[in-house]
C-alpha cells in the first residue's frame, strides 16, 4: 500500500457548483453559449466566416449541440498563419492580456484575453484547484513558468482567487524550490510531473525527505505522464498527485482536471466543449472510443476557437464519477495523433528539429530524436548522421559542427538538446515514414 497522508476535509468552493449541474441544464447552457460563440466568430473573424460560408453555413444553422459537427475544424497552423492578430474577435483596447506559445516553425502563436476571458480562465482554475482539494488556507508554491507560457499566471490567478496563499516562485532553481517547500509551510505545489520527480531526488540529496513536510497536494500538468509515475511520486512524497490538462489555444491550464477519485479528468465543459473524433476521417466517434480530442471555446470573447484539433488522443469515460461531478471525464492523455512531443513543458515538432539541422548543414541529414529521463529531468538527444559533406578529418571542425547544431536547436526550440554525431547509415530506415523519435521517458518509471 502506498503511504499517503489523509486528505483534509473536502473543500467546497462556490465556483465548483457548476461542476455538479444536472446534465440537461448543462446541455442547454452549452447550446446557448455555442450559438453565441459561433455568431461572434462568424461576425468578427474572417477565417471562421469564410470557412462557414464555404460550407453554406450560417450561425443560425446551429440549432442543437449535434450541429457542432457541421462546423469546420481549426488546426494549429490556422493560428500560425493568422499570426499575430488574425483570429482576434475583439479590438485590442478590450484585450487585457496576450500570451504566446511555440509554433511549428519557431513563430509563436499569440492568444488574447479580455477581462471576461481572464475571469472565465480564473474560474476554471479555481474549479481545477478545488477539485484537487486545494482551498483557502493552503500555501501554494507555483513552480510553473511565469511569462508568455500560460501555466504560471493561470495557476497563480486561480490559487489567489480560491483564497490560498500563493508563492510565485516560477520554474527552475531547484535548491531554492526545496528551501521554500520546507521553510514556508507549503501544502500544495503546481509544476510539471517530471520536475516534481526531480525535486524529490534533489531534496533527498540535500537530506530533505518530502514525506516529512506539510506538502500534501501536487497539481501536475503541461506534459503527459503515467499512473506508474503517479505511484512513484505519491509513495516518495506522501502527496496526492493530480493530473490537470489545458492548452494555450483554448485558454491555458484549467480545461480539465482530475478529482479526488483520480480516475479521468473532468472537462469544464460549460466553457470548453469537447468532442472525440477519428483523426483520420474527422468523424465524431461513439462515446468511449479512443480518438482525438477536439475543443470549442464556449465563452471566449477575445479569441473564440471553433472545433480546435488538439492532437491529443483520449476517450470519454462512461458512467458517473463517484465524486458526483456531472462533467464528462476524459482518460489521461496518453499520446498525440501527430508527431509533436512535449519536453520540459515545451511543445516540439520533429519539423522544428529538421529546420535547425537544415539551417546548419544545408541539407537534411538522417537524424533521430531520443528522449530519456534522468533524475526526473527530460533529456533530449538528437543523433545526427555524419554526411560526407560535413565530415572533416579535423576533430575541432566536427566539434564545432556539434556546437553549431546545439546552438541552432536551442535557437529554434528554446531548449537545450544534446547532439550526438553518429556514423552514416546507422539510424534505422523504415519503409515509408521514417521513425524520427524514440521516447524512453516512461520506461524507467
Amino acid at each position: 500500500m502506498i503511504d499517503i497522508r489523509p486528505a483534509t476535509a473536502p473543500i467546497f468552493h462556490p465556483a465548483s457548483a457548476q461542476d455538479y449541474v444536472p446534465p440537461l441544464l448543462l446541455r442547454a447552457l452549452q447550446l446557448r453559449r455555442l450559438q453565441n460563440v459561433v455568431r461572434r466568430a462568424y461576425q468578427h473573424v474572417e477565417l471562421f466566416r469564410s470557412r462557414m460560408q464555404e460550407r453554406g453555413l450560417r450561425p443560425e444553422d446551429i440549432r442543437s449541440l449535434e450541429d457542432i459537427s457541421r462546423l469546420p475544424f481549426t488546426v494549429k497552423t490556422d493560428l500560425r498563419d493568422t499570426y499575430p492578430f488574425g483570429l482576434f474577435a475583439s479590438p485590442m483596447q478590450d484585450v487585457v492580456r496576450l500570451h504566446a506559445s511555440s509554433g511549428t516553425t519557431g513563430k509563436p502563436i499569440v492568444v488574447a484575453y479580455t477581462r471576461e476571458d481572464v475571469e472565465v480562465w480564473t474560474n476554471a482554475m479555481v474549479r481545477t484547484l478545488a477539485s484537487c482539494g486545494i482551498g483557502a488556507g493552503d500555501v501554494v508554491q507555483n513552480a510553473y513558468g511565469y511569462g508568455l507560457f500560460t501555466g504560471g499566471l493561470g495557476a497563480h490567478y486561480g490559487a489567489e482567487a480560491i483564497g490560498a496563499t500563493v508563492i510565485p516562485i516560477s520554474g527552475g532553481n531547484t535548491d531554492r524550490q526545496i528551501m521554500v517547500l520546507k521553510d514556508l509551510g507549503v501544502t500544495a505545489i503546481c509544476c510539471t510531473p517530471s520536475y516534481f520527480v526531480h525535486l524529490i531526488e534533489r531534496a533527498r540529496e540535500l537530506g530533505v525527505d518530502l514525506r516529512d513536510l506539510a506538502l500534501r497536494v501536487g497539481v501536475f500538468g503541461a506534459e503527459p505522464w503515467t499512473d506508474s509515475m503517479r505511484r512513484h511520486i505519491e509513495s516518495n512524497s506522501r502527496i496526492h498527485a493530480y493530473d490537470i490538462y489545458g492548452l494555450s489555444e483554448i485558454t491555458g491550464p484549467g480545461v480539465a482536471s482530475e478529482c479526488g477519485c483520480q480516475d479521468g479528468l473532468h472537462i469544464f465543459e460549460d466553457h470548453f466543449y469537447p468532442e472525440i473524433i477519428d483523426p483520420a476521417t474527422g468523424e465524431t466517434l461513439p462515446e468511449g472510443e479512443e480518438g482525438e480530442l477536439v475543443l470549442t471555446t464556449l465563452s471566449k470573447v477575445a479569441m473564440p476557437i471553433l472545433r480546435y484539433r488538439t492532437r491529443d488522443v483520449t476517450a470519454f469515460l462512461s458512467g458517473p464519477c463517484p465524486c458526483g461531478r456531472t462533467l464528462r471525464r476524459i482518460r489521461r492523455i496518453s499520446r498525440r495523433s501527430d508527431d509533436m512531443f512535449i519536453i520540459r513543458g515545451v511543445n516540439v515538432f520533429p519539423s522544428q528539429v529538421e529546420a535547425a539541422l537544415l539551417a546548419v548543414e544545408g541539407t537534411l541529414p538522417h537524424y533521430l530524436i531520443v528522449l530519456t529521463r534522468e533524475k526526473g529531468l527530460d533529456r533530449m538527444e538528437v543523433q545526427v548522421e555524419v554526411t560526407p559533406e560535413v565530415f572533416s578529418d579535423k576533430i575541432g571542425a566536427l566539434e564545432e559542427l556539434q556546437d553549431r547544431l546545439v546552438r541552432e536547436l536551442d535557437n529554434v526550440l528554446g531548449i537545450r538538446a544534446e547532439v550526438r554525431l553518429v556514423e552514416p547509415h546507422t539510424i534505422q530506415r523504415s519503409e515509408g515514414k521514417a521513425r524520427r523519435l524514440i521516447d524512453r521517458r516512461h520506461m524507467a518509471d
Partner: protein
Amino acid sequence: MKIQQLSLFLENKPGRLAEPCRLLAEAGINIRTLSLADTQQFGILRMVVSDWERASSLLKDAGYACKATEVLAVEVPDRPGGLAAILEMFESSSVNIEYMYAFPFGRLDKAVLIFRFDDPDKAIERLQSAGINVLAGVDIYNGGHPA
C-alpha cells in the same frame, strides 16, 4: 610530394575500429600507418594505405563517411631535437600544422612523420628550402622505404 591520407568517421563504441580494418584486409589493402583522434563520443581514424583510391571507394561503398586529405611525409633525423627543429620552423610561419603522427618505418637514422598542414604547397616550399626531405607518395604507399 603530397600523400593521400584517408580519414574515417567512427563512433566511439567497442568494435568500431575493427570493422573498416577487416574490410581493407579482405581487399588486400595494407595500412601503412594510422592514427586515431577521438573525443568521448566519436573518433576520426586517419590512415595511409597502399592503394588509397581503391580503399576510399571500398569504404564509401560500405557506407563510411570517408575523406581523402593531402598530407606530407617528412624525414626527420632520429636524434634528440630532430622534431623540434621542424616544429620551430613553422612556429613563426603563416603555415599551420593541423596535426601530425609518426610513420613506423624509416631508415635507421631517420624517422618519418606525417604532417597535416593547412597549406601543404607552402609547407613543401619551406621544408625543401630548409633542406628537409619530403618523401614521395609512392615510397610511402609501398612500404615507407625511400630509396
